[in-house]
């Protein structure tokens, strides 16, 4: 594979197809989009197969200077590889899920294909400004998808989405300009090894945090997510939950941690506090939702909080755990939105109480829904467990308080998801129209079965996914080791004394009280 620009090709294929879609009729646009995403998926498999585990950190590197120091620089490590795989895996499924779109199909497909270009671009970019362009441009197609093909309140939702995400971006751009000026390079791998002055790190970290926290989303800047999800069409929700939310986590793991380790340690208490609040508060909010999509959206916020605590645990388990949580959540919440879409297409309502007893007339649907529900609440044997378990094991080493509060998520998560499942799939059939819905079609099987297989694969043999990332995570762990906090749970063979990790713990608990 040496020298062959496979990453550029993966960007080019959907781009060309997307442009073509603008000029195609509805049927052709659908086929074109499906073909292009499948080609990209095939290229993704090729990418994964030819990725040299344990080889160079950055592989498939492409460099082409463009103008004024700005360069076309692509390349991936194991972390980026996995996220690219997630994106290209979900895209054909999204196209399949868009069968009910009838308005402006060509433009719709074009928007999705452009979205794919930008998503892959974010994970593959090696140049700071290139990354910024991909990262921010991702807003535009999603804004259009929600604003044009969304539900009733789509305009409000799309503006809210735009407003929130734009706010952080401006701060991040300023920070990037400062960094380039300071380090005299836009090359991301170089920047990752550059030691910024710890005082400057504080400001840079906060600027990046503003952007990534919104994308994540972390409490309290999460309120755009429920609205965006509720209004977005099914496939839009899948991409939003599946990939766009992962950009925040990717940003933290690619920029905040390696570039500003000291600041990361300094602000860990803030992240822990917000995450602990998120786990408890958003889980409780999810419990009282009447709208299926809103419920799942709030559950996403709670799950992403497990990602952020894993990030700032400063150890291998936390980092690997959060990556698996991100991959797993991408699959599972995507699948849950698809499950909502399946019945939304039949009944055109997301109101939970309009359904009931679907196990009777849609048994296979109920089975898939059950599997994804269980994966969402982290049942061992599914992908959700592996990620959650590792992340929480990681955080336990730092603070048992944070671990305790975040682990309550497994109780609350079970409560709201099973309550949802009970109202949708169990109970007696209350409404004749819901009772008359047919079971999933062949097309819907094609959407749900691959995700189900991936969820179980990741749950039973996660090594396939951990192995490519292992070396990169070890490198990152080594990079941040100098700032790693002392855990409060450490074993002591002598008489009890107070230790340093304890103070941090109090900060976290204190922060939560605010």
């Amino acid at each position: 594979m040496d020298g062959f620009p496979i990453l550029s090709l993966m960007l080019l294929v959907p781009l060309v197809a997307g442009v073509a879609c603008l000029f195609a009729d509805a049927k052709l646009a659908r086929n074109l989009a499906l073909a292009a995403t499948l080609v990209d998926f095939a290229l993704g498999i090729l990418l994964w197969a030819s990725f040299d585990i344990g080889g160079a950190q950055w592989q498939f590197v492409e460099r082409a200077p463009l103008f004024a120091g700005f360069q076309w620089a692509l390349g991936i490590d194991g972390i980026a590889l996995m996220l690219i795989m997630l994106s290209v895996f979900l895209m054909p499924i999204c196209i399949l899920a868009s069968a009910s779109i009838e308005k402006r199909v060509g433009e719709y497909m074009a928007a999705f294909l452009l979205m794919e270009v930008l998503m892959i671009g974010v994970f593959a970019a090696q140049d700071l400004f290139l990354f910024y362009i991909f990262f921010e441009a991702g807003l535009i197609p999603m804004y259009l998808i929600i604003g044009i093909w969304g539900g009733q309140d789509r305009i409000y939702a799309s503006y809210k989405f735009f407003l929130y995400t734009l706010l952080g971006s401006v701060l991040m751009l300023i920070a990037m300009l400062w960094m380039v000026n300071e380090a005299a390079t836009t090359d991301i791998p170089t920047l990752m090894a550059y030691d910024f002055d710890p005082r400057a790190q504080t400001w840079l970290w906060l600027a990046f945090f503003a952007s990534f926290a919104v994308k994540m989303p972390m409490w309290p800047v999460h309120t755009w997510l429920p609205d965006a999800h509720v209004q977005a069409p099914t496939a839009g929700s899948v991409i939003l939950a599946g990939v766009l939310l992962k950009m925040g986590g990717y940003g933290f793991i690619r920029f905040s941690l390696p570039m500003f380790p000291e600041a990361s340690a300094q602000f860990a208490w803030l992240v822990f506090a917000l995450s602990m609040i998120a786990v408890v508060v958003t889980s409780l909010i999810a419990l009282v939702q009447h709208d299926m999509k809103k419920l799942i959206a709030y559950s996403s916020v709670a799950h992403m909080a497990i990602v952020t605590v894993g990030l700032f645990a400063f150890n291998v388990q936390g980092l690997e755990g959060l990556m698996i949580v991100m991959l797993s959540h991408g699959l599972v919440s995507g699948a849950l939105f698809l499950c909502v879409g399946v019945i939304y297409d039949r009944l055109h309502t997301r109101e939970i109480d309009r359904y009931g007893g679907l196990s009777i007339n849609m048994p296979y649907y109920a089975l898939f829904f059950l599997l994804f529900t269980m994966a969402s609440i982290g049942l061992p044997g599914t992908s959700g467990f592996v990620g959650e378990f590792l992340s929480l094991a990681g955080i336990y080493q730092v603070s048992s308080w944070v671990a305790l509060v975040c682990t309550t998520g497994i109780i609350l998560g079970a409560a709201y998801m099973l309550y949802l499942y009970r109202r949708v799939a169990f109970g007696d059939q209350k409404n004749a129209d819901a009772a008359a819905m047919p079971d999933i079609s062949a097309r819907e099987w094609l959407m749900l079965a691959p995700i189900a297989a991936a969820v179980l694969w990741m749950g039973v043999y996660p090594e396939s996914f951990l192995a490519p990332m292992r070396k990169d995570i070890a490198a990152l762990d080594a990079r941040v080791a100098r700032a790693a906090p002392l855990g409060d749970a450490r074993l002591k063979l002598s008489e009890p004394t107070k230790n340093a990790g304890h103070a941090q713990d109090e900060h976290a608990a204190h922060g939560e009280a605010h």
Partner: protein
Amino acid sequence: MIQAIVFAPLLAALIAGLGNRMIGNTAAKAVTTAGLFLSCALSWPIFIGFVTGSAEAGVTPVLQWVQSGTLSFDWALRVDALTAVMLVVITTVSALVHLYSWGYMEEDLDQPRFFAYLSLFTFAMLMLVTADNLVQMFFGWEGVGLASYLLIGFWFKKPSACAAAIKAFVVNRVGDLGFMLGIFGTWLVFQTTSIPEILAAAPAMKGASTIGFLGARVDTMTVLCILLFIGAMGKSAQLGLHTWLPDAMEGPTPVSALIHAATMVTAGVFMVCRLSPMFEAAPVALAFVTVIGALTCFFAATVGTCQWDIKRVIAYSTCSQLGYMFFAAGVGAYGAAMFHLFTHAFFKALLFLGAGSVIHAMHHEQDMRYYGDLRRHIPITFWVMTAGTLAITGVGVIGVFGFAGFYSKDAILEAAFGSGTELGTLAFMLGSFAALLTSFYSWRLVFLTFFGKPRWAGSEHIQHAVHDEHHHADDAHGHGHADHGDGTAGYHPHESPWSMLVPILVLSVGAVFAGFVFNDTFINRESFWNGAIFYNEHLIHAMHHVPLWVKLTPGMVMLIGLFIAWNNYIRNPALPAAFVNNFRQLHAFVYNKWYFDELYNFLFVRPAFWLGRQFWKIGDIGIIDRFGPNGAAWVVARGSGYAQKVQSGYLYSYALIMLLGLVAAISWVMVK
């Protein structure tokens, strides 16, 4: 071979579950039942191998699972004496329950799903008991939880069944929180999740170290064991986390027998025994186990005395018997705990399946107030239920012969007394009193169900049945409605089909002989356990030398309980009502299960929903949205409103602004 035992049920579950209507009822039932009988047939030789001393403990690796830094765990199947005991218990009861369900679920419309769930449960339970590391144990732990959830909610059209299913899962998750933190802590301390490695290192840690937990520094082994035990409390329905078990009776009766009596609920006991060397290094945790076990044993027995639902009586009885097992483990008699687990599996499964046979005969009526006089109508069920009752109440003569519970329960009480500690004595006293109550409620069940006069006429279920029957009879013969003054309402209970009776009869063999045959093996033979559990030889010695009155106590209290039950329900059936009238408050307290459900509802369930609404309406919408995006939008809208006014389009106003700007600029330059 162990792979076949564990994975045959999984394979069968997948075939039956995914094939479902495609392969049809009979195929699905045959596949799952055959899979279980295969597992069972392969398990007994392993167990007998350990009993005769010819088998060796070993581990069969299956697949790598997770490796993250120093945290790694794999899929593997471990077999030793402790696992072997569980293997025969699980596969035997499960195979019999599969067979029983052919008859019991005959009329159900969804049979493949039911059998698939049963087999899936068995697989998860087998993964739990063959676990070589804590995480695989947790896998099985959650897997059985899932199967339990699905089976409790099997009749998902009933709101009560759905509620019970969710309750079971969520309450168990509270325990799992402890289990998970316990695993994290254990890994942090020992840097491994492998059970043998942890157990090898544990004794050296006794009192030698402290660990930080929630800001305090506490003894390492104490905190780890208590956290793990919280997991056990959830799964084994111990006091505080027991509320899900009685509600779980919403599931079909075969499920209650398999999951909520014989196997899953004993997982906690199994865990404590499996980790016994670890618990031995934490005396405080063991004291905690003893207290919780003894209290549960007492609490559940009191509640069991005044329930009317036949299944709930047995459910509380299960809860109480689990308490015995825990305090046995707490005082260090792990062999006795496992022995009681073993015998209990047979007689409690028997009692549940027998109750199922009664319910089947009485057209789904479960309220014992509408039973009576059934011994003449369903004699086989009556005799096996009697055998089960003799076993649970522990009938026997020292040195001659006894039913299963006679050996195991006596061993536990003697061990508690023999341990010589104050807590042990307390556990002995509570346990003995609970034994009295056990005898009372067990015989009460038998007397209410099988003796006295028929009281069937009051039951709606029976009335429906009779009505339907008459309807058919009217069509056929044309004779009118007969008046039955004998309380039978004209109903004729029928004995269950052989597919149900054979499993019960097989189990009754276990209930009668399991104690007599295996007493020596479980209690006295260290070579049988061979390191699989912590074997306290000193305690075994002490329990054989307890005073005579201690040895006689269980028998005495059993007789007293029997006498009270006989006196109240046969000799003078008006007595219970008079008693209730005299002690109204006490009765209400016990009848309402000590108000645990009401308390939890008040403390946790309603506040959770209330808080959720507040965080949503006030937090997210009222504050964050209002001052965040909506606020920003408001500011922009207001601002642009002003800007709009400025852009009036009149030349003179623009000229004025230009002039003012020019003046300002010039002054700035001049001042500078």
